[in-house]
Structure formats: structure tokens, C-alpha cells
């Protein structure tokens, strides 16, 4: 397919959608599927057919819509009315009211059980109102298994623009101008990373997409991969063009079978239509993508361990330097970015880096996807501008604490992050502010805890996770996490003395500074941050000397 054929195909797809009166999306993200959305989809499709409405109303499976604990969700477009907790029984009432009588069914509207007056137009609901969707745009509105759906919303336009109207240097300049930083957690400026890989001269370079999302409670990457896989492919292809790579790998964790299935399907469709493979869209640029499936090791989210795993070796990290940009996959210059970073590339290319940089704070541009979980009323997937306060996320978007409980802390960044106490609810969610509080942005997991949480137990839980997930290569992480875990358990059991607490603190700093990779380097964070903000809880458990 050349670029004119691409345009024609996109026009045709748009035209097809124009002829339809309505489009109904049934959320078929992993979360909604697990509560039965596939049966709802099938029944709804059958009902529409039985009523002879298939030329007016299209029923498609879609990716994640956001409010995951209200699922299965059904979205009625273009009205943008979302129904919650839909099953095969109450579906009939939705069809009768919304489709037959063209009247919204109040008692099944999104958040009908918790809001005094639920919103018919979902985007007016506070859950969505405070959000700004860039990476997640289209996720939940299109069928991730049909490339036509992606083309109809302007898909692959960015790749077309990059290949024919921009030089690789211009693409990199655009990404630099956007000021986007790595969404995997470390926050390294993406444009600088691209530029450094671009500058290395090599016969072969690689692009890697890191989809080995392992933080407990995090599901951002999974939702993007499931809901809009073509967006990631497009971002990877643009990256390949910019740095001069002809081969890409998407490393997706094995626990995400649906994401893998949809991503592989997307690769097949894109290759079939000449959007991947040799001479993409008739240009001189060739790029192919292969999926690699992770085997359940958290450490493989660390870039050097991930690279070792792709090479077929044991997934253990290597000391840096050399950085992957210089010597990565099979010793070649390698660009490795997170799923969410690639998801933001296409809009940056189409609308410009300046446009992207307008959102967010001075040092953290754009938006960030968070996975809300824990004791919060509306858990799920959200995307907000950088700089949104934690209070806005928890109380306005997330609807506050379950059961009218009191907020105690929010844990960001998973096992590598820390806890933010109530006193800092007004912290701006950006890379620097979170680090200043002893936490990190991380990949975007956000676990909310109420007063019933014991912070020593929280620290112990995350330390147990790091202890189990340590690869065992370096001594500080291998033995240090085990020692810290045992000491935390001792404190939790009320058997520890002040000496134990002092040793724990000394070990924490040692493991943080002496470990080989980021896993060990950040493993003490939950401990150190809870010690910083909730020291009294530790001290209350310490045995007093007689």
C-alpha cells in the first residue's frame, strides 16, 4: 500500500462510520472480559441483527474505557452514554430504553449507584472531566482488532507525515520539543534518548517497546496494548525511522495474553497493508516488529535485563555504562521506551511538539496515565495532565475513599516507589515533586490506602515482593532485601528493638546505593518513605528497653 492508498482506505473507513447512526462499544479489556463482557457483546450483536439494525448500529468490542470496577461497560456513541455493570439480563432493558425508545436508562448509567444524578454524557462526569486523554485517546472508542477503525480516527497519519515530510532529525527535534520524558518511570527525556541512539553509527540498530509491566496494581501498559495496539506500532515505526533501525521488538509480559494476541494481530494487519515490512508506504524505510513474551520476572522490566531476555539469556541486569543506546540488544545501539511513551508519539508528530508541551508542568510535559487502585471509590485507568494534584486524582476523579473512610496515604511507583501521606495531598503529580517526597512517578500505579492500613505491613509487603523478584545477581539486592524483609517482619511482629530499626535503616541506604540495577536501587523506597512519613508507626512497635 502506498500513501495514497492509505488515505483512500482511511476515507473509506470514515465514510462507513458516517453512514452508521450509532456505534456501541462493549469494553473488552481484560478487566471487563473477566466480568463477562464477551457474552454481553455477543448478545448485543445478535439482538441488533435480529432487529435488523445492523446497517444503522455497529456493535464492536473496544479497549479500556477507564472506570474498571464498574464493568462490564457499554458505551453508546456518538452520545457518549456509558452503562455500567451490564450483563445478559439487564442488557434487554438497555436495548429497550436506549435503542428502541431512544431514552437513556437512568438506573444503569455510569456511577448511577453512587452519584445523586448520573450523567447521560459521560464526559461531563467528574471522573472524565478532569482528565485529558492523549495516550489513551481512542482507547475505548475503537475496535482494537480492526485496523480500519484505527485508520478512521487518523491512524498512521503520523507515520505518513514522518516518512514523507520529515527527516529523521526533524522527527527527533519534534520529540525533543515536546519535552516528553520516559513514561516507564525514570523520566529520562525521550528526545535526548532518541538523539543519542541516532548518533551512534552501526549497521544495525533496534527499537524495543518495554511492555513488561510488573508493578502490583498497575495496568496502564496492558490497557493501551489491549485497547489501541496500532498506536504503539505506529510510535515504534516512527522511532525506528528516526534512529535508523529496521527491527523492533515488543516485550510483553506473559501474564497479558489478550494484549499479546491483539498486538500480534495488529502486527499482522499492519504488515498486510504495508505499514510495516519492506518499503513502508512506498518509502525507502523498512521496519518490522516481533513480539517477545516475558516469562514472569519483574526484573525483566529493567532495560538491560529485558535485553538479555530478548537475547535468550537469563534475565539479569548488566552494569551501565555502557547504556543500551551505545551497546544494547546483541551489542547494537538500541532504543528502549515504555508502551505509554510510544503511545504519545503519533499525536506529537501530527500536532507538533509545541502542542504537547503546552500541557503539564515546566519540567514534566504532557499527560500521565495512572492506574487507580486500592480503597478508592472509582478505581480504574485515568490520564491527567502532569501537575494535577493528588487530591484532585483521589477525591475528584476517584470519588474519594471507599465507605466514607479517611485517606491515609497513596502509594505511587509500586515496589520502587513510596507512600505520600495526607499532609502532601496537594502535591503536584510530576517527576520532581514526587522524588522530593521520597516517592517516584514510576510507571503510574497509584494505590490509595485508608486509615486501616498498617504502614509497616505495607513496607513489609513491598519488600517481600522485591525479595522474591530480585534476580540474585548482586549481593546487596539478593541478601539485603531478604535481611530487610526479615527485619521488617520482626518489627511487625513486635519483637524488634531500636538496634534492629537502626540496622534496617543502614541496610536500606546501603541496598539503595550499592545495588547493581534499578530494582535493588529502588527496593528500599517503600521502606524509606514510610519511615520518613510514618516513623511513629515503626517506633510504636519497637520493644522498649527494660
Amino acid at each position, binding site marked *: 500500500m502506498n500513501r495514497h492508498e492509505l488515505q483512500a482506505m482511511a476515507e473509506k473507513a470514515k465514510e462507513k462510520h458516517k453512514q452508521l447512526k450509532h456505534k456501541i462499544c462493549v469494553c473488552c479489556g481484560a478487566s471487563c472480559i473477566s466480568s463477562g463482557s464477551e457474552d454481553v457483546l455477543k448478545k448485543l450483536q445478535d439482538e441488533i441483527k435480529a432487529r435488523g439494525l445492523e446497517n444503522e448500529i455497529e456493535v464492536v468490542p473496544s479497549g479500556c474505557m477507564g472506570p474498571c470496577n464498574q464493568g462490564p461497560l457499554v458505551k453508546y456513541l456518538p452520545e457518549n452514554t456509558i452503562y455500567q455493570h451490564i450483563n445478559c439480563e439487564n442488557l434487554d432493558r438497555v436495548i429497550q430504553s436506549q435503542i428502541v425508545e431512544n431514552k437513556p436508562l437512568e438506573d444503569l448509567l455510569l456511577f448511577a449507584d453512587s452519584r445523586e444524578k448520573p450523567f447521560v454524557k459521560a464526559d461531563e462526569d467528574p471522573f472524565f472531566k478532569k482528565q485529558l486523554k492523549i495516550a489513551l485517546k481512542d482507547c475505548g472508542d475503537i475496535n482494537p482488532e480492526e485496523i480500519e477503525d484505527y485508520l478512521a480516527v487518523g491512524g498512521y497519519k503520523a507515520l505518513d507525515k514522518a516518512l514523507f515530510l520529515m527527516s529523521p532529525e526533524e522527527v527527533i527535534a519534534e520529540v525533543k520539543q515536546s519535552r516528553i520524558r520516559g513514561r516507564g518511570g525514570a523520566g529520562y527525556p525521550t528526545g535526548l534518548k532518541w538523539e543519542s541512539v541516532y548518533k551512534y553509527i552501526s549497521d544495525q540498530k533496534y527499537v524495543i517497546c518495554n511492555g513488561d509491566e510488573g508493578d502490583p496494581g498497575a495496568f496502564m501498559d496492558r490497557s493501551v496494548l489491549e485497547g489501541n495496539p496500532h498506536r504503539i506500532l505506529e510510535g515504534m515505526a516512527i522511532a525506528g525511522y528516526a534512529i535508523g533501525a529496521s527491527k523492533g521488538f515488543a516485550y510483553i509480559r506473559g501474564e497479558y495474553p489478550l494484549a499479546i494476541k491483539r498486538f500480534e494481530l495488529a502486527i499482522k494487519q499492519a504488515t498486510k497493508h504495508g505499514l510495516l515490512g519492506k518499503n513502508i508506504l512506498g518509502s525507502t524505510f523498512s521496519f518490522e516488529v516481533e513480539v517477545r513474551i516475558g516469562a514472569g*520476572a519483574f*526484573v525483566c522490566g529493567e532495560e538491560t535485563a529485558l535485553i538479555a531476555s530478548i537475547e535468550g539469556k*537469563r534475565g539479569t541486569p*548488566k*552494569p551501565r*555504562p555502557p547504556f543500551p543506546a551505545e551497546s544494547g540488544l546483541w551489542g547494537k545501539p538500541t532504543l528502549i521506551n515504555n508502551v505509554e511513551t510510544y503511545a504519545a508519539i503519533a499525536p506529537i508528530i501530527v500536532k507538533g511538539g509545541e502542542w504537547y508541551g503546552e500541557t503539564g508542568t515546566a519540567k514534566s510535559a504532557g499527560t500521565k496515565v495512572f492506574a487507580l487502585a486500592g480503597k478508592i471509590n472509582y478505581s480504574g485507568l485515568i490520564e491527567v495532565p502532569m501537575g494535577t494534584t493528588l487530591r484532585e486524582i483521589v477525591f475528584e476523579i476517584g470519588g474519594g475513599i471507599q465507605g466514607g473512610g479517611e485517606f491515609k496515604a497513596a502509594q505511587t511507583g509500586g515496589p520502587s516507589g513510596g507512600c505520600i501521606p495526607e499532609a502532601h495531598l496537594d502535591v503536584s503529580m510530576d517527576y520532581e515533586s514526587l522524588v522530593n517526597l521520597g516517592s517516584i512517578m514510576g510507571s503510574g500505579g497509584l494505590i490509595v490506602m485508608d486509615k486501616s492500613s498498617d504502614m509497616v505491613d505495607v513496607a513489609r509487603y513491598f519488600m517481600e515482593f522485591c*525479595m*522474591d*523478584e*530480585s*534476580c*540474585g*545477581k*548482586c*549481593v*546487596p539486592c*539478593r*541478601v*539485603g*532485601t*531478604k*535481611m530487610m524483609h*526479615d527485619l521488617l517482619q520482626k518489627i511487625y511482629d513486635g519483637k524488634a528493638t531500636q538496634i534492629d530499626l537502626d*540496622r534496617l535503616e*543502614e*541496610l536500606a541506604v*546501603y541496598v539503595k*546505593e*550499592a*545495588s*547493581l540495577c534499578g530494582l535493588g536501587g529502588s527496593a528500599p523506597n517503600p521502606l524509606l518513605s514510610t519511615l520518613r512519613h510514618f516513623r511513629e508507626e515503626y517506633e510504636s512497635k519497637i520493644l522498649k528497653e527494660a
Partner: protein
Amino acid sequence: MNKIPVIIDDKNFEVDPHKTILEVCREHDIEILTMCHLKGLTDIGACRLCLVEVEGINKLLSACTTKVAANMVIKTQTERIKKYQRITTELFFAERNHVCAVCVSNGKCELQNLGYKVELDRIRYPHLFPQCEVDTSHPWYVMDHNRCIMCTRCVRACNEVEGAHNWDVMNRGHQVRIISDFNTPWGESTTCTSCGKCLHACPTGAIWPKAIVQGQLEKNPGMVNELVERRKMKL
């Protein structure tokens, strides 16, 4: 070759830019403690004993894997580094079951020497006392996991120098173990050539030849590098 200036512990040196900090320090008799490093094998930066401070870099760097750069200011003996060397040594001893008095390596053990170097008078952390196997299935050699410190020098010697790749690592975290083939008894290995390089590479009494009693083990870790150098000359 053009030499570059570096400052190590406040002294000026002109050094070869292709060398690692460890190589440069050893050439100039600056002591850097190591355990997973063995000349002739690929360095992996795993034991973290050779950490040094480099001005302008806020992370500690492993000397064995970091190349020198022009005007690098390196510190090898700060209080922090000494403290961390001691903690690392304590963790080594606390991790498995190291009983010097009954060990074949007693008196000639790199781990024991490390203890003396960091002036280890006690171990402040509780011993983990894991249940470890002693594999005596090989006709000539014994693998005692109680004494293994997971430096993986045996793995690298077997893989990189002998080319047999009998040894590898299984499991994660504190449960890692060195394995023969796919975790079969050493004596049943289909890849082991019984060359004995692993024995000489091993810094402790974890791998030893049968018919040796306490304190009698003579190891020659330098033989690994001698072999590597000899092969280079032949080419």
C-alpha cells in the same frame, strides 16, 4: 597509544583509556577488593565490593566494569565505600553456611581473606542458615552449595574458557543456586569435561577435589587467565 590523565585517591596518573578502573588501580598497586572478578573472565559487576566514587556521578560505580575516562576523579577509600565493603562481607557470611574450621579452603580462602581485610570481628545480621545440598556425584569433584557465594566465576570459566557451559544459575533472589546442566547431579552431566577450571576459579571451598581434607586445598585461580593468554599467543 595516547594516555589519559586520571586522579585516583588524590594522586595523578597517566593511564591507558581502554582499561577499566580496576585494571588501572591494580597496575598502580591501589587495592580494590573484589570477589566476582577473575582475570581472564568477563566482568559482571555483581559482588559490589569494587564500588568506587567518581566525581560528578552520583551513583557508585563498579570498578571492574567501568572504563576510565579523561580527567576522571576516582575515590576508592572513602568512609562510605569502606562501610559498604564491610556490609557486603557480612552479608556474604550471613547468606549461606560458612564454617571455616571444617572447610577445605581454610587458610587459603578468598572469602576468609576478605573478612580479614575488612576487619570483620562479628556479623551483625542473623545468619540465614539455608538448607543447601552437597553434590558428591562427580567422580573427582564435590560441589558444596553451603560455601557458594554466587560469584559465578565457575559459570564463566566453564562457559567462556572451557566452552562446555556445564554450570548455570537457577532460581531468583536469595534462592539462586548454581546448577549443573538442567539441574541434574554433576556426575550425570552431559556437558562437563571434568577439566577442573571451575575448581580453580572458585574463590571459596564450594568446589573442591575429592580426597582432600580440611585446609589442604590448593587452588590456582590465575590458571584461568594463563590459559586465556596462552591461547591468544597461539593465534
